[in-house]
């Protein structure tokens, strides 16, 4: 069975290669091929899962060594895979959700002339993401890590003719590169410390090095995770990434890629366990992002950006949980999986709504859609209930455990982290209710499609004409079926995992687990969560359910306006990094031209000038030459006399 692991990656990679190099001949069948290969990957994953379930808990790790990748003295990097329970979880999530989204895209991208390429990119993403979770060393993980970055770049910028999309893609890649710097430094640190960067030896001997070194490695890994998982301070790209087609947002920027950071932290648990400082920083980053994303989510009128804020916030929960150490790892992953279901479902629902509304993304121009799009409404509603943590649904189980674990961290930080998590839950309830109410309830606030000038800014997937009023309609089967499947996951996954601690037992051999002792009882935490949840929903109802929503956004408070602008982080980046960078490069161009080149050109010019002067001595007058001759003779005589005198 081990030998099948490579096929998990190979299948979608083959799809990407064929679809991207195949040319227009494949235009008609390309999307089926892509979907098929994604499904094949899922099938192989399922087979391996079945095989793994058949083994004992300690014997579940499978390995496959393909070949030595970079054989250099003292440096061994292998193309080798490791499939354990943690990787397996991800494989199933990635290939499962991935396949569903392939199916969804068949309908969503129907009108796009470049659909073949879209599927090629999606396959490329799947391959890279699977490589990321299957790698048995950090360097190979890095390959997948950058690979998903590339796929994300290509997919965000899929509609490249839109300058905003191209810019967003570039921004995503660049911000991720900053994170990648962290990862590469972490790998270099590992290499100098352990002489290797394969998971097994590094994690096994993590305890043998100093805590300072582990903290350094941990912080660098955290930097990488921040870039990929859009955590503060590297979160700014995620909102812009919503320029990509909606299935991309669902797959990459909600369910899978952005959770890679969590995977990285959990995978490197042994390192973090030895570095409490790094853990604390991780938890703080998670908590800050949790609030940050939630606040941003409250202010956005763009449905996808509101969901993006929510994604950020939910990943903040996961990072927070991962930062808690062994008491949180399992719940981080559990929340990751349930989040994968409901957030993908929510995004697909948003895509469906946009599909029916002439690609309008402004929620203020929605309203009352529940009657026109019943399936979307129901699936989106279930996802909504799941994310806010409605009792019994997925989010309830996973989020509740994280809040509990945060309190269980103990001490002041436990209280602070727990309260932040609790507060986050309230805000989540608020903004998700807001999205729900603005989209599906209330009166119709539909607007005619923007005119041709603005049309360039709109996703061209649906063939609508400018100036036309939207005719909301339910999406085709290829789109609704994945939504339904994901809705099932949103409803039942949490319960399935949590009841009987199934998920805990499954992952514990890999991540380890220790039971925390929260200062308050688990029931209290649950009840408190329920209470803040109710408050959040109630406030949202009061603001958006009871009274009509204005079509143009009110000016709002200072916080709202800041939140609309992503809490001014972009402005900060713009002023400090972009402007500063521009000035730096411009002045360096000047320096290069005038100083570095100037010195050389100046030398040349002064030699030329000196020659010009000397040339003037050559005036053609025989008498002048005679003077120099005569002077020369005099000097020679003087020299002779001097020599004699000496």
């Amino acid at each position: 069975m081990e030998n099948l692991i490579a096929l998990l990656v190979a299948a979608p990679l083959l799809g990407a290669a064929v679809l991207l190099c195949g040319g227009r001949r494949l235009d008609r069948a390309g999307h089926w091929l892509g979907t098929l290969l994604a499904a094949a990957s899922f099938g192989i994953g399922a087979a391996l899962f079945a095989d793994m379930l058949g083994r004992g808990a300690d014997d579940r790790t499978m390995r496959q060594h393909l070949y030595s990748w970079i054989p250099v003295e003292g440096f061994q990097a292998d193309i080798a895979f490791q499939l354990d329970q943690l990787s397996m979880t991800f494989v199933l999530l990635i290939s499962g959700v991935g396949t569903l989204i392939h199916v969804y895209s068949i309908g969503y991208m129907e009108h796009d002339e470049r659909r073949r390429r879209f599927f090629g990119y999606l396959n490329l993403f799947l391959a890279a993401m699977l490589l990321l979770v299957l790698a048995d060393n950090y360097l190979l993980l890095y390959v997948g890590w950058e690979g998903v970055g590339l796929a994300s770049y290509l997919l965000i910028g899929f509609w490249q003719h839109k300058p905003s999309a191209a810019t967003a893609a570039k921004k995503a890649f660049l911000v991720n590169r900053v994170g990648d710097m962290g990862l590469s430094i972490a790998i270099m640190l590992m290499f100098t410390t352990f002489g290797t960067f394969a998971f097994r030896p590094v994690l096994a001997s993590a305890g043998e090095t100093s805590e300072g070194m582990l903290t350094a490695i941990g912080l660098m890994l955290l930097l990488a995770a921040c870039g990929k998982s859009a955590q503060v301070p590297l979160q700014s790209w995620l909102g812009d990434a919503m320029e990509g087609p909606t299935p991309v947002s669902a797959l990459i920027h909600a369910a899978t890629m952005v959770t890679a950071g969590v995977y990285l932290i959990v995978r490197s648990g042994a390192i973090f366990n030895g570095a409490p400082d790094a853990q604390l920083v991780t938890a703080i980053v998670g908590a800050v992002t949790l609030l940050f994303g939630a606040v941003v989510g409250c202010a956005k009128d763009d449905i996808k950006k509101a969901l993006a804020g929510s994604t950020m916030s939910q990943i903040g929960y996961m990072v927070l949980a991962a930062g808690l150490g062994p008491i949180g790892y399992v719940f981080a992953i559990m929340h990751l999986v349930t989040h994968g279901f409901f957030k993908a479902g929510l995004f697909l629902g948003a895509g469906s709504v946009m599909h029916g509304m002439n690609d309008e993304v402004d929620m203020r121009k929605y309203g009352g859609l529940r009657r026109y799009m019943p399936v979307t409404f129901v699936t989106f509603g279930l996802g909504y209930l799941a994310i806010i943590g409605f009792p019994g649904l997925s989010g309830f189980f996973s989020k509740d455990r994280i809040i509990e674990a945060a309190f269980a961290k103990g001490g002041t930080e436990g209280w602070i982290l727990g309260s932040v998590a609790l507060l986050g839950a309230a805000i989540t309830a608020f903004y998700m209710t807001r999205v729900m109410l603005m989209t599906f309830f209330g009166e119709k606030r539909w607007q005619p499609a923007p005119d041709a000038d603005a049309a360039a800014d709109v996703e061209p997937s649906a063939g609508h004409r400018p100036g036309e009023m939207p005719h909301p309609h339910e999406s085709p089967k290829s789109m609704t079926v994945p939504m339904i499947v994901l809705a099932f996951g949103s409803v039942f996954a949490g319960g399935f995992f949590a009841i009987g601690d199934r998920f805990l037992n499954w992952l514990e051999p890999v991540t380890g687990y220790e039971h925390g002792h929260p200062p308050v009882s688990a029931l209290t935490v649950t009840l408190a969560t329920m209470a803040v949840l109710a408050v959040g929903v109630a406030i949202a109802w009061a603001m958006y359910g009871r009274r009509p929503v204005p079509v143009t956004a009110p000016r709002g408070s200072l916080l709202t306006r800041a939140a609309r602008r992503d809490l001014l982080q972009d402005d900060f980046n713009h002023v400090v990094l972009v402007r500063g960078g521009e000035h730096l490069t411009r002045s360096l161009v000047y320096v290069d031209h005038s100083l570095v080149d100037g010195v050389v050109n100046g030398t040349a010019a002064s030699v030329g000038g000196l020659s010009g002067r000397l040339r003037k001595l050559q005036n053609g007058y025989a008498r002048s030459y005679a003077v120099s001759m005569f002077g020369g003779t005099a000097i020679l005589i003087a020299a002779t006399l001097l020599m004699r005198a000496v």
Partner: protein
Amino acid sequence: MNPVNYLYLAALLFTIGAAGVLIRRNTIVLFMCVELMLNACNLAFVAFSRMHGNLDGQIIAFFTMVVAAAEVVVGLAIIVSLFRTRHSASVDDASLMKL
């Protein structure tokens, strides 16, 4: 009187001649200055001859004279042809050597 004085005189005449070469522009005068320099040398040679008590210095002076004669012949011919083409006897007019 110390016969070395002849040498001093020769040196003085030589220097005057050289200065003349540098100062004068008229090719003919310039040439005369060259002759003056040559004569100064001859004087020195003759004085040396007397000092050393052999005739070699005089022989050299003699050769110098012959060579000077040849030189004058050719030099004056050059001056004449130069004057024919340029209508000027100034050395500064023959300054085509400059860049």
